[in-house]
């Protein structure tokens, strides 16, 4: 039964990381290169999930995504299922919840590359998109790895938002953190121990990998 929770958690974390990689990369690039007056506001919005209690985030998501709200109703019409208390809803919540963990390392990495190499690429006839993929991305490899690992790990550790918008539906929204909560509530401490220790070990190994890599990883493409 807990194997299902573990599988679901990994699935959610993987999908969230992939979606955030696609959304967060252009956002981080914009933040690192724009001269727009809107930048501080966008930066603040991006960082909000770091400081907001997950319950606040979950509450607003519940308001926005429930089937009587425009977005929620549209989803029901388009897919026949609801966004609240579903896997799709969890992905939406996780993407918002983990957004800063993708965007901030990427923003930092792009800023560290700076305009220099991109001007050099332009002077070698590389179009902007060409320069982005052949110069900015390879030089930011470390930032990409850090961002993906942190996003994945942070999504695995998600609890409050899931509780608010996902509930506890086995195979659909019952992730590891929810399973632990349930074990404790029902006084099955042995099961809670197994999952908690596993999550503790996993989180430590992830952070160890990130910090170890920051020390040793040479700036070279893969």
């Amino acid at each position, binding site marked *: 039964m807990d194997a299902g929770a573990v599988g679901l958690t990994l699935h959610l974390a993987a999908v969230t990381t992939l979606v955030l990689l696609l959304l967060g990369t252009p956002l981080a690039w914009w933040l690192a290169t724009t001269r727009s007056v809107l930048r501080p506001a966008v930066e603040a919005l991006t960082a909000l999930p770091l400081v907001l209690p997950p319950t606040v985030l979950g509450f607003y998501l519940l308001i926005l995504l429930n089937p009587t709200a425009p977005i929620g109703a549209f989803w029901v019409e388009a897919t026949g299922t609801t966004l609240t208390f579903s896997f799709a809803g969890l992905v939406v919540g996780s993407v918002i919840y983990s957004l800063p963990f993708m965007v901030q390392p990427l923003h930092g990495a792009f800023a560290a590359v700076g305009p*220099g*190499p991109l*001007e*050099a*690429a*332009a*002077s*070698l*006839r*590389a*179009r*902007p998109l*060409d*320069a982005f993929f*052949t*110069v900015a991305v*390879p*030089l930011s*490899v470390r930032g990409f790895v850090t961002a993906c690992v942190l996003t994945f790990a942070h999504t695995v550790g998600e609890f409050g938002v899931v509780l608010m918008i996902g509930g506890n539906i086995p195979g659909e929204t019952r992730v590891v953190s929810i399973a632990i909560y349930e074990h404790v509530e029902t006084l099955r401490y042995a099961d809670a121990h197994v999952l908690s220790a596993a999550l503790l070990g996993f989180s430590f190994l992830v952070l160890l990998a990130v910090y170890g890599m920051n020390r040793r990883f040479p*700036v*070279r*493409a893969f």
Partner: protein
Amino acid sequence: MPSDLDIELSVALGDFRLDVAERVPFAGITGVFGPSASGKSTLLRALAGFEPARGHIVVAGETWLDTARGVAMPPFRRRCGFLFQDARLFAHLDVAGNLRYASRRAGNVDPAISFDDVVGAFDLEPLLPRRVDALSGGERQRVALARTLLTRPTLLLLDEPLAALDLYRKAEILPYLESLSARFHVPTLYVSHAIDEVARLADRTLVLTDGRVRAFGPTPAVLERLDVQSIAGPLEASVVIEARVTGHDTGYRLTRLDVGGEAISLPEASHLDVGATARLRIRARDVAVATARPRALSIRNVLEGTVAELVTDPDSPFAEVLVDVGGEHVRARITRAAADDLGLETGQSVFALVKSVSLDG
């Protein structure tokens, strides 16, 4: 097709303003010289499209910028090679990867500049598999120069390529820079705040101060102007003159040259053929002035001429004397007291005593 670089630019960067309107012949090396913060690099960056500018830039008939008509070609479309002071090699690629990056994007390939030719010309064969962070400063600039050339540019923009190098590395790179326009025939703008580099490399020189063109013309003519000298600083004040080699004295190991009808000799430079023209650089501080031909003196290079210009400044202990030697000009830096003592004035017949001469390229 007009074969020149037609620039009429203004760039505003905070309080700083650059205004340049010139037609630059499209051949050889054009030096852009001036003190730091004079706008030299800004001019180059505006030409490459890295700095927003107003006005127009027409390069050999191709319009890169014309704000009046709303034309602003993005940097990657301007067929100019840009050599940055800090080389800016891509750290994620090896040397060969950096060169291929340029070569692959060059578009219509000019057969006059082949990959192998460039690698050979810059002696890069042994460096090709090296990582760029394992290169010395001089090697980096050599690779960057080759990489820039491999974009097959119609115009090369070199932004203080030697500024970050020590003297030894400079000497290592200079011959490659000299061979650029000669071997690959790419017109070049060369930005530098070092007058010796400009004197050695540039066919013509544009002098910038405070964002404005102070002088533009053939390098020797520009560098002998006193107002340009004041920019270069007192220690560097010098002239570049062209002299004809008249013979070698193998006994005393000297080479004799003719400067405006006067003889000058320097330590033997046997690579110069008799009859060839050599560029000599004479620093103002190495020249003294006498009103009569001195005798019993160790200085052998005594040039007879007339005072063409005399500049004194009541706040300075020094005076600068420009001596016309049969059409060539030699500059002397003496004390103001000496100038008054000798009663120097324009048109007066004098002797320039040259303590030391160096060969420029």
